[in-house]
């Protein structure tokens, strides 16, 4: 009896050691390597998908009127990009070069449809929030761009990191733009009236509105998103001067 317990204990210990060993080597080789961390941090600034690589602009304009949809979209893109990059990276030695675009699009579209269908069945409320973004996610050129430029030539783990990093860099710009557009355009953040309440008359208003402040409705229109992104680029490049273009 005791011998049996000892045996199982020993077996368990060995197993634990093995797991520890595996995770350790994994960490030493990939998680902690400098190159891999760069994969995550680079897209946040030096190689930002929106402001430097010029990818994923359409969605950045369409959904940055408010913070909430911007954040929902960012989360969805993180998921789809990480998954898509891994799948394509696993398939990279099998995909014939001539039909690679179709394969990439089919993988992305299938992933998005699977997610959409599952959400519709189990998390209906979330799916209602996401449903208008489905088309935008499939045609988000960040996803295609990274599949084409990175995942086709690198291993799954690196592609995974690249996907997360680029989606995060994309989300960062989305959130910055949405913050300014919602704040200046409707005086709200996440739907809360942070600048006070605007009544029908000056007397009924509170906060800034009582002083005669007006929302700039222009910020709600899409052209303003372009101009806000332009200003973000201006700010980023005046701090990070190596990004400045010749003309």
């Amino acid at each position, binding site marked *: 009896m005791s011998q049996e317990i000892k045996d199982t204990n020993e077996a368990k210990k060995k197993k634990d050691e093995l797991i520890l060993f595996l995770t350790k080597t994994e960490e030493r080789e990939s998680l902690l390597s400098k190159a891999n961390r760069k994969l995550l941090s680079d897209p946040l600034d030096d190689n930002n998908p929106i402001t430097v690589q010029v990818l994923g602009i359409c969605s950045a304009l*369409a*959904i940055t*009127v*408010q913070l*909430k*949809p911007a954040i929902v979209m960012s989360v969805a893109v993180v998921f789809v990009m990480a998954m898509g990059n891994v799948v394509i990276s696993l398939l990279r030695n*099998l*995909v*014939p*070069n*001539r*039909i690679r675009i*179709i*394969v990439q699009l*089919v993988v992305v579209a*299938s992933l998005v*449809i*699977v997610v959409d*269908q*599952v959400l*519709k*069945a*189990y998390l*209906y409320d979330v799916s209602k929030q996401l*449903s*208008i973004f489905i088309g935008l996610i499939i045609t988000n050129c960040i996803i295609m761009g990274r599949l084409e430029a990175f995942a086709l030539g690198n291993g799954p783990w690196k592609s995974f990191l690249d996907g997360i990093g680029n989606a995060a860099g994309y989300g960062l710009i989305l959130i910055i733009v949405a913050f300014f*557009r*919602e704040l200046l*355009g*409707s005086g709200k953040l996440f739907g809360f009236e942070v600048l006070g309440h605007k009544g*029908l008359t000056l007397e009924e208003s509170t906060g800034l509105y009582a002083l005669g402040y007006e929302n700039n*409705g222009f910020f*709600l*229109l899409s052209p303003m998103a372009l101009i806000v992104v332009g200003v973000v680029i201006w700010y980023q490049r005046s701090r990070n001067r190596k990004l400045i273009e010749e003309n």
Partner: protein
Amino acid sequence: MDRNSNSYIFIFSVIMVIVVAVVLSSLATALKPMQSENVRQEKMQNILKTFVGDSLKIDGKSIELTRAVASEKYNDYVLNQYALDYKGANKDGVDAFQVKLAEELKKPLEEQTFPLYEATYEGKSYYVIPLRGAGLWNAIWGYVALEEDLNTIKGVIFDHAGETAGLGAEITTDWFQESFVNEKIYQGQSIVGVEVKKGYQGGNDKGDNAVNAISGATITGDGVTAMMEERLKNYKDFFEQKKQSKVAIR
């Protein structure tokens, strides 16, 4: 095998198509019942919401009107449903709940079916009418509950497929929907619905068939105006019959 040979490409694409088709269609088939159940429950929730509000009061207790609660209690409140033709006569053998307005709208007026739900809640009866129209980008739809006089609005629910967040999408917000409460749909003898008016100066005037528009969402607002008038006016014959019969009973 050479990855760029035509036969490899052909085999690869065939395998890919089969795998994707099998995965997607089996997933869609497997999840279909749950999805349609969600859609059905949401429809019930929306219908109840127009005259109940966010929470249901049962024996003095108030319960949040979730989809599950709505589908459970739906039959307790919605007692009658009609599938009307454009003259206000009931079509036999048509389940009003299954009528899809998206399809009805494509038909000529004479062939359309107009659903109407009759409900009783806290001793009052309400008439709920589904709406559907076009916004700026895509379809908008909703439900409007009328009080017993078939003129005063008890409540509305709007939803949309893809209006701009912060502009057109604001039609789903409480403040916009609440502004419809107690508005009248009749102007004189004709049904005009409620106009979503830009630069509205009427304040809270409930007798003028107009509410304040969302700034920056003119086209979605016009869509709501058009949808209300176009849908509601087809119920006029039915409303008149209903009113007549009430007078007769008295």
